[in-house]
């Protein structure tokens, strides 16, 4: 309080203002961890809801699809149950992420964050980290449902499982983000809705690729969906399925494409 009269007096006397403040100088790590705290607080409250939705979706796929197949044998049940985690990760990345980004673009918070004094790719890094934290429990959820329903014996290849889960999530989030930052919000919502159908019904994730026409199998060799699912499957049931290096390359290529498009859109001025 004792400072107040002095400050007023100096203003009245027209004293020169104090020196200009320095520009912001913060390490990328501090920016990243602070953004992470911010994003977690915003999306964190959704976490319980997302896990419940994931559990319902997992039950829908594993139990519901099971009804479509009469007298399901244990190999088919295993295929179905090991495909379900991929479907869950893809739904988060390709549907929930673009909806969130479209909303942020519409209400101005996307530009608010882009105006902050930090390297804009860090915004994506923080978002990606939070979506990884939210998405990864869904693998456990799907496995528990499969185990309860069909009493399956999984054989985990942990390094492969972790790598595949992270790659599929990063790919789906990056591609979902890229869709949301490249298209008009309405169009982005529409595309993400169509993608759910494509993932659920037209992608050899919960059924074998051999059931598709040959040309469509070739298409799926270049899309990230089947390769991602097969890698994750090999990590969950290493005794029954094998990982392929080509699948890994396709998945990594899609990851890079999604990240490049997203970072470009974040940095670019309209």
């Amino acid at each position, binding site marked *: 309080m004792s400072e107040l009269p002095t400050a007023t007096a100096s203003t009245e006397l027209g004293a020169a203002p*104090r020196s*200009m403040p320095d*520009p*912001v100088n913060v390490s990328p790590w501090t920016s990243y961890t602070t953004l992470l705290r911010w994003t977690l607080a915003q999306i964190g409250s959704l976490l319980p809801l997302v896990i419940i939705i994931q559990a319902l979706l997992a039950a829908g796929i594993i139990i519901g699809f099971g009804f479509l197949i009469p007298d399901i044998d244990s190999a088919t049940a295993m295929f179905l149950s090991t495909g379900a985690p991929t479907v869950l990760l893809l739904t988060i990345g390709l549907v929930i992420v673009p909806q969130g980004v479209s909303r942020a673009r519409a*209400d*101005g918070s996307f*530009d608010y964050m882009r105006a*902050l004094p930090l390297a*804009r790719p860090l915004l994506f890094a923080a978002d990606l980290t939070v979506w990884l934290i939210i998405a990864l429990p869904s693998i456990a959820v799907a496995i528990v449902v499969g185990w309860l329903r069909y009493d399956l014996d999984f054989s985990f290849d942990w390094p492969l499982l972790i790598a595949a889960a992270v790659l599929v999530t990063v790919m789906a989030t990056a591609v979902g983000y890229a869709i949301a930052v490249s298209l008009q919000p309405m169009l982005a919502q529409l595309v993400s809705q169509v993608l759910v159908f494509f993932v659920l019904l037209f992608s050899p994730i919960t059924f074998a690729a051999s059931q598709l026409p040959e040309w469509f199998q070739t298409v799926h060799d270049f899309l990230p969906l089947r390769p991602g699912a097969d890698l994750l499957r090999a990590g969950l049931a290493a005794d029954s399925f094998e990982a392929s290096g080509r699948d890994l390359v396709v998945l990594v290529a899609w990851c890079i494409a999604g990240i490049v498009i997203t970072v470009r859109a974040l940095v670019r001025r309209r």
Partner: protein
Amino acid sequence: MDRDVLHIAGLTRRFGATVANDAVSLRVRPGEVVGLLGHNGAGKTTLVSQIVGLLRPDAGTIHVGGTDAVADPAGARRHVAMQPQAQAPIDGLTPRTAIEIAGRIRGLSNRDARAAATGLAEELDIAQWLDERALPEGRGLSGGIRRLTAFAMTVVAPTPLLVLDEPTNDIDASRRRLLWNAVRRRGDDGAGVLLVTHNVVEAERIVDDLVILNRGKVIASGSPAHLRGTHDGDLRLELELPPGGSDPTADARGLPVAPLRLVRTGRRVLMTVPASEAAPAVAWATALRTRNRLDGYSLGPTTLEDAYLALASRGSDDAAPHATTAPVPLEAPNV
């Protein structure tokens, strides 16, 4: 120019056929609060969006703290803290956490950020909401408290340039006063402030300079006294017309005095008259009032608002100076 914290020269930005900024030049020196006035669509937000690298200019230069913001937008952003017109994304956070996070992003230590949050809550009188959580769909915290929180997030750390886009929206009168004082204090502490506002009357008290933008062009700039452009002896006669009533000033021959300036906005007519001729003008207005041609009238000192409205309407339809009688196609500013 080296001393300017913000130096904009010849800035032009088009959207299709619309020229949103047309060769705009302005400067903000350290310690100076510059008000940017203009009605909706005048190009204010387009201008500030280019300062922080959200939009790319078609022509012209922007220097922020000596850094070329067109060539190095990321470097320029480190000199700027901006409060945009949209609400800050603080859902899920309390004002305290939001201000602390903003402080960390702007380079404060954890301890300084905590102290700054407490200090700002006192300064803006929002301490009682400091630990209430903002929830989605506008629940938890009112719009005014969210806006004050966003302001606090912007000014939490000393920054060379503050850009505030309509910071007083949704805020009650007593806290608006605290906010204006807080803005002035940042200027006195050495920051340059670019203040975008509709609130001409309130902003007049704290700004050093004003820039008036109309249809993308700077139509006037200078100190409030300079822009007011009239002598201290001049007075303003404000007439309130009844709904659907005809404008008694429409025909200049019926006027008791030759007004220095005449502006109509909605159902209000603002006449600037020399003090020596106030008496006949008031007698004339009283006569109109008794005949119910006016809902009311008042006489007071001239304000910047009169000048602003006159400038803005002149810019809109190129009418002769000091005799603008056409209906003013602009949103009435907050008074």
